[in-house]
């Protein structure tokens, strides 16, 4: 079974620039999550999709972050404009509905300078 694919692996941008991350979940997994992990902290949920509908985006900074999951498969997370405090690893995970054992991708390490 192929895992959760994420790209790019690393990204360095200047503050106020925009950036986008891509995620391809495990085939058949209806639920997709985006997490932000700041150095020294645990992963924090940004947004959860069930198929192509949003279940929870309460912790997504909507003034600068956006996410979509068209056709209920791939997803993109965008930051515009980026701030220094957005430097983090952005993790995508997927699971069959009701399964707590998420499968995470390797993440995208974003550095904002």
């Amino acid at each position, binding site marked *: 079974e192929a895992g959760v694919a994420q790209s790019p692996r690393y990204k360095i941008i200047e503050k106020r620039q925009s950036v986008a991350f891509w995620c391809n979940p495990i085939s058949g997994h209806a639920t997709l999550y985006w997490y932000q992990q700041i150095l020294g902290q645990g992963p924090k949920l940004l947004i959860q999709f069930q198929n192509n509908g949003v279940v929870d985006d309460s912790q997504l900074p909507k003034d600068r972050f956006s996410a979509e999951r068209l056709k209920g498969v791939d997803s993109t997370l965008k930051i515009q404009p980026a701030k220094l405090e957005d430097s983090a690893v952005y993790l995508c995970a997927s699971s069959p509905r009701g399964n707590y054992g998420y499968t995470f*991708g*390797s*993440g995208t390490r974003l550095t904002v300078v």
Partner: protein
Amino acid sequence: DQQVKQNSPSLSVQEGRISILNCDYTNSMFDYFLWYKKYPAEGPTFLISISSIKDKNEDGRFTVFLNKSAKHLSLHIVPSQPGDSAVYFCAASAGRGGGYQKVTFGTGTKLQVIP
């Protein structure tokens, strides 16, 4: 508000000995608890879980204990092996209606198993 706390940022253990990683939580609505393991440059991987109706779950060298009255859980690794060196995240889940769960992660404990 840190609802899931791992107060030990790091732990060193000799190979073959027991590793005990601790986790405390504050939200009494959590009904499912999980441990994830993370190697550098990789995403976290699911390790073991326990339902709030149980007090112990075992899977090979890994055992998770839950003390609901104390709002405390622990992960025991026996015997510890150098390959167990990683960051371990405690996570807790609560239902939020519609059949969906919200998982909250702790800050992680870095385990080093010394050969």
